[in-house]
């Protein structure tokens, strides 16, 4: 999938934005493998370009929440006490709220664009990682070898880089794979309702929104981008599930 996102733009046969009114809603054929949309744009090319857009946005969201969430979670675990308690209570509440609606709120406040949708999802997704990394850190700090490290006067920074991060890696990677599909569904959902990527942009959710008025005349315009979302999200779920069965901690998924 990542590969597809990288090379997609190079193997795309047509310009994803090139409008060609003489070739509107052409059925899938050898020239247009997946047909053309309501403005005569090649669906396959748009899907290939969209792979980059969709996956890049998803990765941006995940990387950011992973980074900030972990900083917050590890900080919270090291500080402990009331601050820790308070932060985690907030994370608990925040974590529960329907992410889509929360993101919708942020997107509305920020204005409709793909960047806004990404920011909105970052705002609604951070608690997963804050909670998870705090849990892992607390767990590791309670272990015996950390107690002996304390006795040796090991610095906090060293504890984080040498004990916490290596141990957290497995669990975080599983959560990331599982979240990729959820975030991707959320981004395309937001784009679909018009607060994410804007319509000529070849983002998969936006493409479906664009193709909606032609579903009866051109099933391919809606079917293929949706299929791509489905397949990509599903692959990440399967990878995540396989990883989890290897390591099997109890993790949460949000949808």
């Amino acid at each position, binding site marked *: 999938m990542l590969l597809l996102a990288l090379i997609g733009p190079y193997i795309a046969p047509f310009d994803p934005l090139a409008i060609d009114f003489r070739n509107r809603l052409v059925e899938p054929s050898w020239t247009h493998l997946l047909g053309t949309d309501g403005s005569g744009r090649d669906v396959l090319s748009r899907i290939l370009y969209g792979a980059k857009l969709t996956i890049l946005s998803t990765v941006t969201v995940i990387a950011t929440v992973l980074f900030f969430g972990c900083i917050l979670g590890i900080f919270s675990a090291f500080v402990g006490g009331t601050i820790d308690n308070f932060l985690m209570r907030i994370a608990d509440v925040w974590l529960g709220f329907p992410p889509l609606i929360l993101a919708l709120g942020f997107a509305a*406040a920020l204005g409709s664009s793909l960047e806004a949708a990404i920011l909105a999802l970052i705002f609604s997704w951070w608690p997963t990682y804050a909670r998870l990394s705090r849990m892992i850190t607390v767990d590791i700090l309670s272990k015996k070898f950390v107690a002996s490290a304390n006795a040796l006067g090991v610095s906090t920074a060293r504890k984080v880089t040498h004990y916490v991060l290596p141990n957290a890696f497995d669990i975080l990677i599983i959560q990331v794979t599982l979240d990729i599909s959820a975030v991707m569904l959320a981004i395309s959902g937001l784009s679909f309702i018009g607060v994410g990527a804007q319509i000529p942009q070849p983002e998969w959710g936006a493409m479906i929104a664009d193709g909606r008025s032609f579903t009866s005349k051109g099933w391919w315009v809606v079917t293929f981008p949706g299929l791509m979302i489905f397949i990509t999200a599903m692959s990440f*779920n399967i990878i995540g599930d396989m990883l989890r069965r290897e390591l099997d901690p109890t993790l949460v998924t949000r949808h």
Partner: protein
Amino acid sequence: MRYVLERIAFSLFALFILIFITFLLSHVVPGDPAIAAAGPNAGAEKIQLIRERMGLDQPFHVQFLTYGSKVLAGDFGTSWFTHQPIADDIMRELPPSLELVVLAMLINLVISFPVGLIAARYHGSSFDNGVRVVAIAGAGLPIFWTAILLQQKVAADWQLFPVAGRLSFAYRDFEGATGFYLFDSLAQARLDVFLDLIMHMFLPALALSLLFTAVGVRITRTSMISEFRKDYVVMARAKGASEARIMFRHVFRNGATPSLTVFGMQFGWMLGATVLVEEIFGRPGIGRYAVKAVTQSDIHAVVGVVLVVGLVFVISNMAIDLILFAINPRKARED
């Protein structure tokens, strides 16, 4: 008793956070809220007027307190695209959405519990493996795409269900006291209306529920599998209990408890996901209202929806936890 108080306190805290988030959304994030409130076509004078009227010259915490007390009093401001009080708009739009979510939830439960239970009973069988794969795959379904495909195939092509709307044209004059038409139609003994409502709801509810059902099946299955491994199952077998008895009298109840918490959360998430289906099926509801508000840049209306969905979420979670507590006090506290 202590547990109940703690749980209520947590809900109040959640409510506070919710109000704080929506305050950020409406007053801080957009930059100048006065511009946002005035709408895209307002002139500079109007903006200045609004700025004073909204008290934006006040310090931050005063603004927050004013905002909080207004919200708690049920005053969400006026929508500038419907020109109605937002609270009224939402009260009108909420019932059809809740009806839809309840039906979707029923579909979810009716599938998740039996399938999860049976897959767990025959853990490792080909049925179980099939269920696992379908559940994992299903958790990747884009709701809006499923909705469009169902609408196109099942409603438009096969004509098994109405394509859109809440009620058929023939019943356009139907009115009910509560706004929950399913309830109202039964109260008025209008079975024809009731059935028509269900027909209109079925596809959107199905589209809405599929993704959540996949997750529901997975969670129920996992929790049932761990129940089947416990010694009380061995004990029940040793007592001579039949497999059916073990499944329904012993395992089901224990395995259902942890998944109920998830279903409680899903209720709120589903209400949030109505933004993806209501518009497609042309149904009135809070989701479609939110989408409209977003596209019209009516930030206060969106924030109102966020508040209400959040509120439903807080309440449904608290209700589930308290119900679980009532059923089995000790177990609930452990979880």
